[in-house]
């Protein structure tokens, strides 16, 4: 019995240790000042810095230190930032103590023209600094670059924390009286949207910036981030707007923060709120992370799309009714719609399908090496017989660049290349028809026929309509049936052709294949009948 218990315990003890190791200690804020005061800024060029008194009574070990600033463009070298904690033993900050720390530094900082959260973490190989509660501290942050042509702006806080000391190294513009910062024992503290700072308020957006989305496919649109109750006391709304000006297609997606999806839909030609009741009523939220993701109903055409993501709050709330709208933060990203045809998908799937015959297992040369430790007869045979996609693609590329380019079949190959390559959708040409009245040689009016707008834009408009209730577009409803019809038709044609081949190759010498076998058989019988 005791042995059984010990045996079971031998499983639990490592599991418990593993859980303790796997679950990180919860980070805590040591000291912060995050009441934003965007009007209080400190602007300067390279070497700009600020000194923030932290007072006394601090305890805990520093994990990260964050603040808000913006970095102008220009210059050839992006700055980084050094951080130093100055320590004093007296309340007048005159007697330095010995436990100074300058072990925190950012990686290289890229240009951020709008207010952005920056975080300094411990330098590799250094020991994390622990506050002594009897000492007085000053936080000193200085950007480090000699080639920045545009100003760097620190953003201030409006709290009641001890004021920033006045000894800026490179003062320029209005000096701030308090810094906006936080010192955390663990991972960087998430910013709460105040001060117009993106920070972690909009942490990620999807599609990510500068990514390519295949046309004619559904794509996922969403955002994750963090909004606190301080910055949105009356509720917040996440707004995501997609625009493609050339195609006049716009999708408007709206989800209330705190994982409550309000609605999403798309509209053409405007950004109007389809469901005002949902969009205008804010839901009070508590601090926390949000995550919104949805598959869009919008039809994506070729072109560049602009995605604007913003978090808004009502100006004020009265008797539970939110009035006005105030944009806390907003960011704009772009993504590209590029067409891939069904043919591309089928072509790409061929070898994947062949390789799937191996049961989805991966195989390599090591499977044929007895001494490798991963020797397997079946996988070795798979490796020897099943072509790898990379090599097969290279073979086809060699064929296309060599044999298939030779005249005269090279022309046919070129036509196939044009038909099957990634298409570049061309805007349909516009035609202007002059209208003359009487004998005048000057047109009285011009009739402009723009098929890009009328046909493509009109079709996109029709494709945007949704079925009541399901939210599916006509295309989403009908296309599977059309694809099924096309697929069955292809199977019948190919099957009929294959059967005709068998009929034609009976050794009579008349078979032509390709569907002519049956007809030739009838002709052969007629020939036998007339020549008997």
């Amino acid at each position: 019995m005791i042995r059984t218990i010990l045996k079971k315990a031998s499983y639990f003890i490592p599991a418990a240790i593993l859980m303790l190791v796997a679950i990180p200690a919860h980070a805590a804020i040591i000291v912060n000042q995050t009441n934003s005061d965007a009007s209080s800024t400190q602007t300067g060029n390279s070497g700009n810095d600020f000194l923030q008194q932290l007072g006394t009574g601090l305890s805990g070990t520093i994990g990260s230190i964050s603040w808000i600033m913006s970095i102008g463009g220009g210059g050839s070298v992006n700055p980084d930032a050094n951080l130093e904690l100055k320590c004093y033993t007296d309340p007048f900050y005159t007697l330095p103590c010995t436990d100074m720390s300058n072990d925190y530094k950012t990686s290289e900082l890229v240009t951020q023209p709008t207010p952005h959260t920056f975080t300094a973490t411990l330098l590799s190989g250094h020991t994390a600094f622990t506050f002594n509660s009897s000492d007085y501290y000053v936080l000193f942050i200085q950007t480090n670059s000699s080639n920045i042509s545009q100003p760097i702006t620190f953003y201030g806080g409006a709290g009641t924390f001890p004021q920033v000391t006045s000894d800026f190294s490179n003062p320029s513009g209005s000096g701030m009286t308090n810094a906006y910062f936080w010192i955390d024992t663990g991972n960087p503290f998430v910013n709460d949207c105040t001060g117009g700072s993106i920070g972690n308020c909009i942490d990620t957006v999807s599609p990510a910036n500068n990514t390519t989305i295949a046309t004619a496919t559904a794509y996922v649109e969403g955002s994750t981030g963090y909004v606190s109750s301080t910055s949105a006391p009356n509720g917040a709304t996440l707004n995501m707007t997609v625009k493609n000006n050339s195609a006049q297609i716009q999708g408007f997606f709206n989800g209330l923060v705190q994982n409550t999806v309000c609605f999403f839909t798309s509209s053409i030609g405007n950004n109007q709120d389809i469901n005002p009741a949902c969009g205008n009523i804010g839901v009070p939220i508590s601090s926390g992370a949000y995550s919104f993701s949805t598959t869009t109903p919008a039809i994506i055409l070729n072109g560049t799309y602009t995605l604007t993501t913003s978090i808004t709050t009502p100006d004020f709330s009265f008797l539970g009714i939110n009035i006005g709208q105030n944009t806390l933060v907003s960011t704009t990203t772009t993504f590209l719609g590029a067409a891939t045809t069904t043919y591309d998908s089928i072509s790409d799937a061929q070898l994947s399908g062949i390789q799937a015959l191996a049961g989805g297992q991966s195989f390599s040369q090591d499977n044929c090496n007895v001494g490798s430790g991963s020797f397997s007869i079946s996988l070795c045979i798979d490796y020897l017989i099943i072509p790898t996609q990379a090599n097969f693609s290279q073979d086809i590329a060699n064929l296309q660049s060599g044999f298939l380019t030779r005249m005269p079949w090279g022309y046919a190959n070129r036509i196939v290349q044009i038909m099957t390559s990634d298409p570049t959708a061309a805007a349909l040409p516009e035609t202007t028809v002059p209208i003359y009245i009487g004998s005048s040689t000057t047109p009285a009016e011009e009739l402009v026929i723009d098929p890009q707008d009328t046909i493509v834009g009109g079709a996109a408009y029709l494709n945007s309509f949704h079925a009541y209730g399901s939210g599916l577009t006509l295309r989403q409803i009908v296309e599977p049936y059309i694809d099924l019809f096309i697929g069955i038709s292809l199977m019948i044609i190919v099957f009929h052709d294959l059967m005709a081949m068998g009929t034609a190759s009976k050794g009579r010498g008349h078979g032509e294949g390709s569907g002519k076998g049956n007809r030739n058989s009838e002709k052969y019988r007629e020939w036998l009948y007339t020549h008997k």
Partner: protein
Amino acid sequence: MLVNLLLGVVIVMLNALFSWLPSVTSLPTIAGYNLDSAVSTGMGYFYTYSTAFWYVGDVFAGFLVLLTYYGVKMLLKLILGHRAPASHH
């Protein structure tokens, strides 16, 4: 690997055997009319239409699959000769 090797050998042989023929990578220009540009632009228009009228694009994709089938069949005839299905005896 064996299939890749076999294909590689066949392709190298084909490339070598027909290397004496002139190589063409674009359609010709006839009487100042660039056929290559015309076909490419035409396909661009077609794709623009097919993104709007998506069912046309689906039918075209099916046509390309059928074209691939006939291409593979022609290739089999070329490689296997009279042993290929539906070949003349």
